[in-house]
């Protein structure tokens, strides 16, 4: 074996318990870094997923007084040319009310083409009782709303709306059959949405063949490019000429994004400071080791070891501490995360053990450990054997 490496290992073996303690210390530090890093990444992606994963990321709406989009099928055909889009669905939305005893509740009647809307809203798996609304005058309602209404499947619910006819407003109502109940894990949606078919809404509100919005989702790894994709669509389809406007989740959620960004930044800061303290720890441990081993170094130099080899001993020590610290830290960090998920009741955060992050962390840790060994290595290189030999 390479002599400096063999000496580095011998020095460690000689003070086994001290070495083990140091590795444990480094591992704990690094486990914090791994824990914080992975937890925050997972938290952010869970947050994002909950926020925009199951909703419209790009939306086309009317830009005029008249909320209705005519010829929407042609627009959808054009949109299908965009490969970045994973879901395109038209929606016919109308504000409406329902009677709950003497109380009047405001609701949003949403007409979807179920097959198109499912990829965006992921409705089917969120129905905890009954089935999707697929026929005329069938509807599903949210959990919180039904906590108030206390309906069963196949019960009926009358929905009231207003249709504008010239200057006059005309009241309309339809009685829907409730075929299922959904839970979007959002009180707002569960309270307000009543989902039915496009045709039902179109018929009730006299909308003919129009809708009120076209909603889209983009591929997951293009989530942060939704604004650019929306711009492309805008240009390509000349939406302005048709009195339409396009919006995207990024422009509408700047605050959330800023929040996520500063959260990510603070996580980076924590990780950096943990890393710095680990590096300082390694550096001071090795600096002490140089002093502890100066007699050996003096003898080795008298025997003709080069200054380069004398410094390599401690660079290897840094490398070894880094490797074991990284392994120990990653194992511990993942263990802590596992414990965290076991202990926390909510399944809101799905921990993603991002292998790229883990490997990159390991590389940074090992690299930093070698850097931490540079100053002790220089000390070892500069150590004058005379000083040691005279010391007695």
């Amino acid at each position, binding site marked *: 074996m390479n*002599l400096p490496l*063999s*000496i580095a290992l*011998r*020095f460690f*073996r*000689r003070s086994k318990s001290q070495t083990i303690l140091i590795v444990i210390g480094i591992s704990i530090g690094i486990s914090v870094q791994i824990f914080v890093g992975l937890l925050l990444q997972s938290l952010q992606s869970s947050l994002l997923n909950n926020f925009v994963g199951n909703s419209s990321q790009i939306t086309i709406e009317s830009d005029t007084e008249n909320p209705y989009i005519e010829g929407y099928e042609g627009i959808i055909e054009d949109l299908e040319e965009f490969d970045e889009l994973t879901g395109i669905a038209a929606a016919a939305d109308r504000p409406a009310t329902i009677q709950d005893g003497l109380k009047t509740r405001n609701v949003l009647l949403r007409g979807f083409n179920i097959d198109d809307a499912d990829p965006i809203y992921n409705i089917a798996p969120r129905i905890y009782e009954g089935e999707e609304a697929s026929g005329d005058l069938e509807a599903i309602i949210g959990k919180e709303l039904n906590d108030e209404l206390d309906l069963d499947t196949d019960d009926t619910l009358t929905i009231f709306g207003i249709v504008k006819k010239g200057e006059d407003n005309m009241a309309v109502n339809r009685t829907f059959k409730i075929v299922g109940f959904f839970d979007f894990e959002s009180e707002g949606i569960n309270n307000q949405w009543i989902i039915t078919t496009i045709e039902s809404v179109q018929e009730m509100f006299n909308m003919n063949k129009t809708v009120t919005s076209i909603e889209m989702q983009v591929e997951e790894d293009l989530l942060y490019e939704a604004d650019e994709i929306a711009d492309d669509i805008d240009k390509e389809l000349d939406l302005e000429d048709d009195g339409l406007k396009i919006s995207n989740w990024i422009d509408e959620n700047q605050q959330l994004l800023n929040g996520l960004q500063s959260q990510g930044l603070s996580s980076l800061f924590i990780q950096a400071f943990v890393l710095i303290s680990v590096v300082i720890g390694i550096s001071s441990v090795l600096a002490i080791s140089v002093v502890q081993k100066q*007699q*050996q170094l*003096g*003898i*080795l*130099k*008298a*025997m*003709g*070891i*080069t*200054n380069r*080899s004398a410094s390599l001993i401690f660079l290897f020590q840094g490398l070894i501490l880094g490797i074991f610290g990284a392994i120990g830290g990653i194992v511990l960090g993942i263990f802590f995360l596992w414990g965290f998920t076991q202990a926390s009741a909510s399944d809101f955060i799905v921990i993603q053990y991002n292998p790229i992050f883990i490997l990159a962390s390991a590389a940074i840790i090992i690299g930093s450990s070698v850097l931490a060994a540079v100053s002790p290595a220089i000390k070892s290189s500069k150590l004058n*054997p*005379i000083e*040691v*030999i*005279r010391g*007695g």
Partner: protein
Amino acid sequence: MVESQIKKLDTQEDFVKTEKKAFVIELKNIDKFYYTGVATQVLFDINLQFRQGSFNSIVGPSGSGKSTLMNLIGTLDKPTKGEIYIDGKRTDKMTKKELAELRNKAIGFVFQFHYLLPEYTALENVLLPHRISKEKITKETKTRALDLLTFMGIEDVKNNLANNMSGGQQQRTAIARALMNNPKILLADEPTGNLDTDSTDRVYDLLRDINEDFKTTIIVITHERRIAEKTDRIIEIRDGRIHLDLLK
């Protein structure tokens, strides 16, 4: 005419060369100062030559400059003034790398303290100079290391760590280690300063054997006259000057 002059010069140079060759160590006009706030002169105009295969001792009171002199010879330190030659090559102008190689190949050190690397066994300690030379450890090198331990009478403790050996055993291991690369020169600074009389005599008998068997040039520092008497040449240093140079 011109030709014969050149020839003459050649032979002169040859003469100088062989003259130097005869001396394995040569010190010329060595001054050594230490600078600790004030400059203190420790060695004064030292001129010394040592013949290949000789057994020399340096004696003198404590603080007279013996160790300083030996460290200069061993290239661990540099003279303030003067020239030092080992095997005809000037050492005080060598690079650190050249010095490391010279120490590894041509010089063996034995110190009063710091016998062995406590992380290694006796045998591993003896092998260290060879490993430092970056040459492969062959069967022959292992045999040589074992032979040296046998020569020193400590083959029984070859697998012991330093802590599990007596002081005399440790020092004999250190001598075996110093001899591993078959150096021309063995430098020993009060090697028995910490040993009892029996161990001391044992070590000196061994040094004598080494000198005779391996033709190693030995310089040993001691403050015991009795020991110095056993060597072929006694150099006495006083206040940084050569006070006596006795050749038997």
